[in-house]
């Protein structure tokens, strides 16, 4: 057993607890610990990424309990990719928050660490009740982060967010119960073995459970008609928290890819490709609704929220084809859209901080400090989000269009993806010209005189640099992600690795 596998959960858990107990009142100490943990996590994630690149699936049996009885952590290419993505985004967002946001309320740093822990755990676990537990950990932390800094509107939006997710958790438990009652297992690999053997009489229970589970993941992934919580939450959350939440929707997407390829995939007998007929129409509607929302948004934060919904629609529509090529393309787009959305939320916050009462709303306001640099960063991020050349969004869209070519619904995909791109471009041009261009003609507001912190700009620059790197190294990146898709579509390797722990321990 390679103990490296549990580090992404252990590091933030220990540092988070330490921060609560030892560094509550010391600003410098809290920031130092938190940043050190994020850097360490990045190192661990890179190491795991390299380890996973050899295409073998590694497992870690917690407490040395063998697989179907105990909980196992599983590292394959997909999990390693998500861990790295989380570590990079987490470090970027933390760097931004250190610029001042973290001290506007209490316990930002411990909550942030627990959030990272929950997300990492959800990516690593190979047991779907444990997935529920990690979902709860990341949600509890996110409730705290969401209302960080306070304010009536934010707390009220927070209540909506909590209630939505509590109902989601109940549905998750019911789904787990239904699936357990007919298969007698909670382990994903074991589930993949048991699902084909479920007798015809129990199929109704099994499939109801599986669809309810899809419903829960769809709430997380903000799929229409379960997206309604997202704009209110993201637009009212503190800027850096909204940027971190960019990966929370991807947790939903990850869970869908994991569960419905592994356990309800080609070998699942009557329940084969169970998710596809539900996912396809819902995600195409999500795509249209999200991009139309971009056009209708009244502030930068709202625009970014709807762009997230639209990109989730595009991502899950591609996933719903359930072919190796499509999933490879979807994973590339997933990486791209996480960085792009994260950067966009941070930029919206930079603008809101500088414009005073107008915040980030689409109204004319005096020119603000560092306007030139922020405008340039917004321009790059907008190119990324709308999928214009030369950035990775464009490559991602090309890959997706190519990947779904063999699908029976290819005409729908091509029409909707291309037309919504146009709508998104119009929306972003409108917002950008109102906030940045037209404001430029107005006289500047009196200079406040104090030097702005450099960390936020470094953070946004780093996330944008990730987009550029993803563009420059698109070839190798896509080849690696294709490898992840190949691994996903050969579940035998995953199942063997997990169930093999039974022999290994003996």
């Amino acid at each position, binding site marked *: 057993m390679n103990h490296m596998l549990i580090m992404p959960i252990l590091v933030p858990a220990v540092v988070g607890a330490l921060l609560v107990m030892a560094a509550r009142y010391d600003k410098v100490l809290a920031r130092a610990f938190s940043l050190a943990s994020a850097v360490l996590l990045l190192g661990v994630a890179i190491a795991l990424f390299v380890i996973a690149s050899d295409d073998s699936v590694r497992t870690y049996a917690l407490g040395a309990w063998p697989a179907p009885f105990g909980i196992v952590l599983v590292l394959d290419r997909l999990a390693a990719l998500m861990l790295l993505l989380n570590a990079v985004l987490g470090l970027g967002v933390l760097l931004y928050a250190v610029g001042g946001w973290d001290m506007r*309320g*209490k*316990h930002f740093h411990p*909550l942030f660490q627990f959030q990272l822990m929950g997300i990492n755990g959800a990516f690593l676990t190979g047991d779907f*009740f444990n997935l529920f*537990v990690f979902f*709860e950990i990341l949600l*509890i932390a996110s*409730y*705290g982060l969401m*209302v*960080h800094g*306070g*304010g*009536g*509107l934010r*707390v*009220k*939006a*927070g*209540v*909506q967010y*909590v*209630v939505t997710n*509590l*109902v989601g*958790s*109940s549905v998750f*438990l*019911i789904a*787990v*119960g*239904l699936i*357990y*009652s007919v298969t*007698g297992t*909670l382990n994903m690999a074991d589930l993949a073995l048991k699902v084909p053997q479920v007798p015809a009489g129990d199929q109704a229970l099994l499939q109801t459970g599986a669809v309810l589970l899809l419903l829960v993941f769809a709430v997380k992934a903000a799929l229409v008609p379960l997206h309604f919580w997202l704009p*209110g939450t993201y637009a*009212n959350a503190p800027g850096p928290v909204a940027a971190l939440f960019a990966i929370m929707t991807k947790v939903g997407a990850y869970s869908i890819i994991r569960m419905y390829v592994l356990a309800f995939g080609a070998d699942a007998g009557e329940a084969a490709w169970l998710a596809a007929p539900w996912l396809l129409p819902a995600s195409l509607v999500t795509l249209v609704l999200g991009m139309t929302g971009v056009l209708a948004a009244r502030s930068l934060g709202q625009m970014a929220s709807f762009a997230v919904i639209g990109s989730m629609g595009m991502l899950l529509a591609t996933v719903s084809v359930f072919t190796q090529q499509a999933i490879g393309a979807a994973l590339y787009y997933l990486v791209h859209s996480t960085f792009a959305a994260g950067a966009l939320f941070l930029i919206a916050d930079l603008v809101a901080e500088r414009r005073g009462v107008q915040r980030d709303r689409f109204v004319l306001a005096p020119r603000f400090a560092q306007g030139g640099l922020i405008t340039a960063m917004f321009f790059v991020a907008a190119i990324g989000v709308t999928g214009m050349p030369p950035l990775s969004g464009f490559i991602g869209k090309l890959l997706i269009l190519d990947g779904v070519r063999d699908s029976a619904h290819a005409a729908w995909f091509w029409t909707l993806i291309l037309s919504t791109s146009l709508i998104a471009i119009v929306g972003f041009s409108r917002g950008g010209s109102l906030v940045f261009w037209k404001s430029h003609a107005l006289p500047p507001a009196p200079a406040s005189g104090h030097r702005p912190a450099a960390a936020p700009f470094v953070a946004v620059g780093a996330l944008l640099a990730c987009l550029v790197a993803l563009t420059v190294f698109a070839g190798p990146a896509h080849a690696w992600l294709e490898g992840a898709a190949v691994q996903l579509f050969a579940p035998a390797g995953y199942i063997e690795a997990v169930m093999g722990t039974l022999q290994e321990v003996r």
Partner: protein
Amino acid sequence: MEFLVASAIGVMTAAGIYLVLRARTFPVVIGLSLLTYATNLFLFATGRLAVNQPPVIGATAGAYVDPLPQALVLTAIVISFGMTAVVVVMALRAYLETGNDHVDLPGDASPEASEDDWKLRGRKQAPVSPPAAGSGGEWA
């Protein structure tokens, strides 16, 4: 017994969903509690309903009950208990900060919300005084 358990779960879920859809936070919180009770009972029933059986397989035991759902229920109870506490605190905080206990965001076309607002009506606030800045834990 099957009928009793099934109808208990069904009635609680129905009442829970009805209450969750109400406009004010108090019924919503009660509804969430009912939903989690129903879920816990449901999880318990997924191990099949068996009476007076040991939860482990022994040499002498002819039959047994599945102990795993009971462990799952225990986890679910702990989590839902903590979550209910969180949502109660957040709902209270939202009430104190915005002046009404409606779930809608202000400006979401809900005239009732502003009618109920104690801040707008100029009524003296209830004995609970809003905590001074910085003393409200995460919610400050």
